[in-house]
């Protein structure tokens, strides 16, 4: 539902998959891999910048108040030739479910994006499990 948001905290071990990626860009100096926030909202803005792109998602709480989450993602050069562009991210106005690791410094509504999930089932994901179906089977 558009009017609800959900906050959940994952088990620390669950994020080991993301660590090689995050270690590369000093993720650990800035974000808390032991915590995951899960929320729903609409992508409202994208900064296509080095060293990491930012995806902004407007999240409405039960009272109708909107909070814009700033989600750090990957270096723009990673996306070269992938077909995933700023326009693609902005053109989809459907509500997305995102997961993110929150900032260690306590900054509100600021985190590292681990997954964007769209209602039709497609995702933009940092997890190798989403890239390789055999990994998904292995964890069941």
């Amino acid at each position, binding site marked *: 539902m558009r009017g609800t948001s959900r906050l959940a905290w994952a088990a620390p071990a669950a994020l080991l998959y993301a660590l090689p990626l995050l270690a590369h860009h000093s993720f650990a100096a800035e974000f808390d891999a032991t915590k995951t926030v899960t929320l729903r909202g609409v992508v409202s803005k994208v900064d296509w910048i080095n*060293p990491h792109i930012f995806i902004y998602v407007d999240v409405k709480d039960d009272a109708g108040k909107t909070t814009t989450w700033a989600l750090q993602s*990957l270096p723009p050069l990673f996306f070269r030739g992938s077909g995933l562009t700023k326009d693609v991210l902005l053109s989809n106005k459907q509500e997305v479910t995102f997961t993110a690791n929150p*900032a260690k410094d306590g900054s509100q509504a600021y985190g590292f994006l681990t997954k964007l999930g769209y209602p039709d089932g497609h995702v933009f994901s940092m997890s190798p499990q989403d890239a390789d179906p055999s990994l998904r089977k292995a964890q069941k």
Partner: protein
Amino acid sequence: MAFAIASRRTLAPTALAAAILMAPVSAPAQTNYAAEAAKNPGAASKPTPRMADGHPDLNGVWHHFFGIGTIEKVGESFVVGGAFSPKSGALYNAPLNDAKPEYKPEFAAKVKSLNDSQVREDPALHCQPPGVPRLGPPHQIVQTPKQAIFLYADSTGNQWRVIPLDGRFHGTDPELAATYNGDSVGHWEGDTLVVDVTRLTDETWLGDNGLLHSRKLHVTERLRRAGDTIQYQVTAEDPEVLQKPWTLSRTLTLQPDALEEAAPCVDKDAGHYVTLEHHDNTR
């Protein structure tokens, strides 16, 4: 949740890789030179094209910085691949075996201090140009008989260097300011293009790990084309801070795809660092 706990079989290698990558200075550098070589099989044994003047033809795209990560389309989804895929990860962890520069004892403490707080102190991590030699090998070369142009799509933004090949010497005007990429002049030694670089600012580092240098830095690059590869060697001499010259080598492979304009660099991380884990971007 997005991340379920993985089975032991799949978790073990990933956790191991994580442990290795989380280690500070000794961590192996992730680069895509080996992955780029794999895109052009047998590149080194192909014929070496030449310009009308007889020199090797260095024109082409030779490297894509930050190619360690790729986004791949799987069905309608986009997932991270490259160095972060269990299938291709090893290719991006191929060791470069870079030597470490040897500093004079009086500079060791300063280098260690900068390295320990690299995430805060590293100018290139905060969008300043990395400068020569840290900028790395050229990403694209445009070559004419009288000059070579080196183009770079760096994470700090687009960079370019114009390298005269007409036999001129370095400019000697004392009013000329030191710059990030310095003053380059080139000449041919047989089939090797030799680029001599001076007038470099001391606001840059030689590499990721607090590698300071002085205004006396003198850089020599050597590029030798062999088939569809270039052997790139760069030597930094700085008699003020280094005990001896420091040399790095890279093997570049001619790439089929065009160089893509780099997005502007905007530092949004600086205010959020809580701890000091490294953030290496080996070029």
